[in-house]
């Protein structure tokens, strides 16, 4: 991984040599060069944020691990050594071994758990990213509307989120899954996002309440911009930081929650392999075949741990003033 802070921290002396004699204008690399020969690099907020993030070693390492693990899930078809439903009765109930690459062992039907876990990652990450996407979309729109328009929109939203908070989250999800139907990845994702958007709506609302008073909003209004343009072109980019952090952490929470739902039998249904489901299927014989429970669980821990570290790094990088979790 390249370190962007190195190439962007060219000294003025170097820049002076490079840019001597050039008139004020844009240099080839997009930097501003003044007549005196000083090159001033254009640094956006994002440049600073990127640099702060890459200084966070644990977050960078976690990002790397995540790319490998989630990438393996995405490319499961090519990465997994066996198909997820390939039955091989001669190798049934084998513990973790390097022999014929049953790294995570096999179950009583001889299905290779390493491959099943990789396919499980695929299902879980699909659901989790869809949840994060939907929750961000709903939460942003509702929060923006509440914060921008205020009054009854705001009141209705806040009362509704208060109400949702009086119900135990997991129980509501389970009830919704039981009576709305579950099983398909999309249904599970939609049910999860129905509950997850409220937290973001509150964050965005808070940001919009204060951004609304900013002068550039008045300026945009005076220039004749419509409400939607002001909300999404002018104000939204200024609260992207918390939204990105929320989206990242939501992926982690969604993976944990989906695993719990699938484990209890109210999420993804077999034969689709999902991490929580693999644990549920392994538990009946787990006293002897402990690897069927151990490895899918460890995979979840690894993924969520990395996501939380990346989320922490992003929070430090994108909005240094805010600490959501101590």
């Amino acid at each position: 991984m390249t370190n962007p802070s190195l190439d962007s921290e060219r000294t003025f002396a170097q820049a002076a040599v490079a840019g001597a004699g050039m008139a004020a204008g844009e240099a080839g690399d997009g930097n501003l060069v003044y007549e005196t020969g000083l090159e001033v690099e254009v640094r956006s907020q994002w440049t600073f944020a990127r640099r702060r993030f890459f200084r966070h070693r644990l977050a960078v390492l976690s990002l790397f691990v995540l790319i490998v693990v989630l990438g393996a899930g995405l490319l499961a078809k090519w990465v997994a050594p066996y198909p997820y439903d390939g039955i091989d009765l001669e190798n049934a109930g084998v513990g973790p071994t390097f022999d014929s690459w049953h790294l995570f062992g096999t179950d009583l039907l001889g299905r290779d758990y390493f491959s099943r876990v990789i396919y499980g990652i695929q299902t879980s990450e699909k659901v989790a990213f869809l949840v994060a996407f939907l929750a961000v979309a709903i939460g942003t729109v509702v929060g923006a509307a509440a914060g921008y328009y205020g009054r009854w929109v705001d009141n209705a939203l806040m009362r509704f989120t208060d109400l949702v908070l009086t119900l135990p989250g997991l129980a509501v999800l389970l009830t919704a899954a039981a009576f709305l139907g579950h099983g398909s990845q999309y249904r599970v994702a939609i049910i999860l996002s129905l509950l997850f958007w409220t937290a973001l709506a509150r964050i965005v609302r808070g940001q919009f309440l204060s951004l609304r008073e900013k002068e550039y909003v008045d300026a945009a209004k005076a220039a004749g911009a419509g409400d939607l343009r002001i909300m999404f072109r002018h104000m939204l980019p200024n609260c992207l930081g918390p939204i990105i952090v929320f989206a990242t952490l939501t992926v982690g929470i969604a993976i944990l929650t989906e695993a719990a739902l699938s484990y209890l039998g109210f999420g993804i249904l077999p034969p689709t392999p999902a991490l929580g489901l693999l644990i549920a299927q392994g538990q009946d014989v787990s006293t002897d075949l402990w690897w069927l429970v151990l490895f899918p669980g460890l995979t979840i821990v690894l993924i969520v741990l990395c996501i939380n570290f990346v989320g922490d790094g992003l929070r430090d990088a994108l909005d240094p003033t805010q600490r959501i979790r101590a």
Partner: protein
Amino acid sequence: MLTYILRRILYSIPVLIAASFLIFTAVTAVGDPLAELKLNPLASKQTIELVRERKHLDEPIPVQYVYWVQDALTNGFGTPLLVNEPIWDDLKRVIPHTLALVVSAELIALLFGVSIGVYSAIRQYSVADYAGTTLSFLGFAMPVFWLALMLQIAFTNLFLAWNVRIFYTSGLSSVDPGGGLHWLLDRAQHLAIPVMCLAVLQIAVYSRYMRASLLEVVHSDYVRTARAKGLSEGRVTMRHAVRNALIPVVTLSALSFGGLIGGAIITESIFQLDGMGNYFIENLLSQDVYPVMAWLMITATMIVLFNLIADILYGYLDPRVRYD
């Protein structure tokens, strides 16, 4: 203060009414209460008609809602679909079990969480601090049901291999637990692992909160004053700093307690504990909406109640909080 409490109680009433209406409409409008019954080959047409009659299922939803509230208030939440005993009778049996589980988990979590947090804060950036941080991050990332299963596997195998029974891995008590102290010990052996599983996440949360809140307090002026007047370091930390730093943790624990009562679902169903969570899952599996709604209503009430307690506690512990 008293008017504040009264006002908060009065404010909770519309919240609970709204919550009950939301629960009722969401659950009955979405799922046909008779769906499962109609699929059951053993249920005759008469039975279905009888249930439809008894539950007033031909009436419009608002009328059904009024009947339901009436049942909830005067008749122990009415009856499940097929059994003729009030739901409350079942709940009366399972609630104490859940309370025993949750209260002990909460106490243990507070004890460990606060100690770890305090130690991490006074020895900031030490090895122990980093270890605490790592462990709490692990706690946040760990699925509770997985931890529960791993502990269950470990202790079952321990028993099978060496015939050592340290903790039981299923159920609330043995077939013949004995009486008095024997009964108590037996119950403790059964509850130990579930309590541990429930406590782990809470320990992670509390230790992080305690650490952050103590770090904030130790830099305040009155702590410097306490040091300046020559108090010992231990007295400064324990008597002056920790007491104030505890305030957010105490309110947080009151807040999460309400949620925990409903949230022991996974743990209870793994360890087959006859508690509220297990009861909820069983009725969800048989798609009986009435116990599910009663359960949701009781948990919602608990959460509202503990939010109220958290607010009052906060005002009591921190006199600077103004009510107006």
